[in-house]
């Protein structure tokens, strides 16, 4: 059964007419064509499909489109601040935080959400926040470093 929904997607009001049972992940990737959000498992175990829903990180593979009317959704394609990369994106580039890059969009969305809540996280807090985002390439060390560096840059900007 189709349902009409109105959402804010990466800052833009978007009207959609979609099957209510369509998962947010599939809505983004297949219907809207935003393939930056990755599918790693489809069962909420890997975090590759993390997006921000009303400011909170969610596994988009576990959310039905029918629930989304009025929602604010931010995906990796909307992480930039204007034309400029978000500090966490820049830090991933600088510090070697991405290898194959498949987990990277989800990792970045989760990191952004952490830094929104906690501008000065400890390594342990970063590891805890990212524990639901699996990465098979990096061993996480450079990711944790990148999140620390991004936090420092964001703090410097606010100061």
């Amino acid at each position, binding site marked *: 059964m189709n349902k009409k929904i109105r959402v804010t997607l990466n800052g833009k009001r978007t009207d959609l007419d979609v099957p209510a049972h369509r998962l947010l992940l599939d809505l983004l990737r297949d219907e809207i064509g935003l393939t*930056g959000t990755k599918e790693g498992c489809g069962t909420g175990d890997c975090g590759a499909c993390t997006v921000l829903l009303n400011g909170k990180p969610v596994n988009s593979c576990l959310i039905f489109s029918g629930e989304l009317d009025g929602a604010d959704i931010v995906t990796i394609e909307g992480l930039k601040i204007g034309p400029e990369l978000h500090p966490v994106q820049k830090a991933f580039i600088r510090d070697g935080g991405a290898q194959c890059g498949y987990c990277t969009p989800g990792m970045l969305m989760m990191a952004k959400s952490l830094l929104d809540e906690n501008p000065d996280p400890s390594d342990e807090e970063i590891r805890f926040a990212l524990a639901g985002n699996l990465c*098979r390439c990096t061993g996480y060390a450079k990711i944790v470093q990148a999140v620390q560096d991004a936090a420092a840059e964001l703090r410097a900007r606010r100061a």
Partner: protein
Amino acid sequence: MEELTVVGKSVTRVDVQEKVTGAAVYGYDLVLPDMVYGKVLFSPKAHAKIKRIDTEKAKSYPGVVAVVTGKDAPWIHGEAIRDKPFLAQGKVRYVGEPVAAVAAVDEDTAQAAVRLIEVEYEDLPAYLSPEDACKPGAISIHEDFASYRKMNFILPGAMPNVCEHFKLRTGDVERGFRESDIVLEERYFVPTIQHAAMEPHSAHAQVDPATGKVTIWVANDAPFRALHEISEALGLPQENIRFINPLQGGGFGSKGGLKVEPIAVALAYHTGGRPVRVKFNREETFISTLVRNEAVLYIKSGVKKDGTIRAREMTIYWGGGAYAEKSPTVCIRGSLPGPGPYRIPHVKVDGYAVYTNKPVAGSFRGYGIPKVAWACEQHTDELAKRLRIDPLEFRMKNVFVDGDVSYWGERLHSVGLKETLTKAAEAIEWGKTSPSVRGLKIGKGLACIQKPTRSPTLSKAGVIVDAKGEATVLAGTVEIGQGCSTILSQVAAEELKMPIEKVRMAPLDTDVIPYDASTTSSRSTYHMGNAVRRAAIDAREKLTEMASPMLEGKKGDLAFADGKVFLKDHPGMALPLGEVVRRKLGADGTVRGDASYTYELAKDLDLETGHSDNASAFYMYATQAAEVAVDEETGRVRVLRMSAAHDVGKAINPLNCAAQIEGGLAMGIGSALHEHMIVDDQGKVRNPSFLDYHLVTALDLPEMIPIVVECPEPEGPYGAKGLGEPGLAPTPAAIGNAVADAIGIRIYDLPLSPERVYRAIQQNKKKVA
């Protein structure tokens, strides 16, 4: 030697911008115009005859475009041994084998139609361990094995279901054991694990109805091997097949070979020219692509009281799963250095690659070495313990050094092993003991390895310089996350003396990119690095030729720097490379350099003795050392810190080297402590999800100390060897040795799960009491 300007620097990855913005298109993301969607019916049986398949209901389901079974795709493929049908033919050999496939207007329709296919099976005895499968009297999993086409290096075994028997014979082990003061025999076991690349598997295929040309879009790390294999199976000339590589979201060995590709091709022949997309979900990726070989390893050694090793005998059963895939070559290249990087006069190895009724084993990062190291390196510690010698000292006394002749008859050079041992040990304060605290037992352990690379192999490359002064590298090496696009760009930039920002990598399309054997075996930096370096030099020489009259100087007087060419005596009068091209060939002109690199073997391994005077283009050496805490109450092992010293020859990009080592360590720690694909007594995988198959998370990892050792390889580009694979190879053994040091108990089977360690502690208490 000229000073290096780009090589040896930690430049930023050239592929990272698109990865952090979500712009990168991976195989799993690819959308083709007018495509149809494929889904697969998988075998529920481990070993059974197919009595009947009825596809009528599926065919008439609304929205279905095509239904295919083995009858519609009568093709067999395989690299070392041609044994694997595109879809099951007459029988199934493992739970998860593709039996039939449906293409439909969308994925839900295809899945619904798959459920309507009826299959009747007649059970056959299933073999779920390699030792059972090769016992006398076992029935054949491949009845027609004798008639399969096999590569010339394959030596089938005399026992049932043995598709390869590797033999190494040096000296006389029986004499060696007689001459020894201590003889020790042990059995080790390494279970099946999965690559678990974050991107699941998928493939797209299309058959052009007019020309018959088959195009396959797939994130495959060996597109030229895949092309060859499809060509051979279909009986089509190679120019009628084209592989296009979208970006690959990790692989670790799983994405070479043919997994989803044959299904997509089989369907594409029945869609009237429409492209087909077949995506495996995570569960399907677990059960029906590739896994790492399980291995049963028997090891026996004789040592003298003076600490020298006299003899070593190994028998290794490599569980290969239902089809040969890479098992024969894992058996060869894993068994050959199986006895470890040690001077041993008497050596005997028998390696058996054995068919079983389990998921197909393919290449996996490390290519056999993690398994032999798990046995050999713990065994080495047990010998040291009996000799009352420190494990580090015992290794320093026996490991290969420059000029040694290995037990397979090769004189070794550029052996950085001792330096890796010393540095890895130092990094965790070897010799300094930590006291146990609150029921936690602390211990340290180390392990070292030597790893060959696939040899001989060929890499070809092109480098194009255009009138903008920019360079394009044409190389068939696949960016699987390891950083090859950055490394190869650095090499091209170095030889053309231009900034790396001016270099780009061409997309990988087998119709236009020159041949490369594969992105496997840690071979790319060395082989493709050499090819790209030579191609860039070829382009530079052509530019020199063109610039010489423009600058009114002899070719030998010209030099390159900063993207410009100039007379050495007049560096102020420099011509940008783009201008050289433009003046000579116009604004659309290009200069192209081409080259190839191959490492010639004097002769192949001798099938009866395993001997060769150059078995590998180069060898990688590494030592890792771990400090662990074992909770005696729960059996939980925690790695507290871990060092990894790797001899890379020359670090083209030190940051990338550290990144590769850290990633390898993480995978190694996971395989040591919890990874295990559990197959039940019916042959069904019980944990095909990330909920039940535990990958390491950001919370699970200790302090990691990557150490780069540079013992240059004269043939390598700038002295480089390889690095990708060894990162996880000694890890479980180093952790196993640390656990044994902590609790005084040797554990022979992986993984070192809390349950296994707890039981070992309890059993030991009983024994002591």
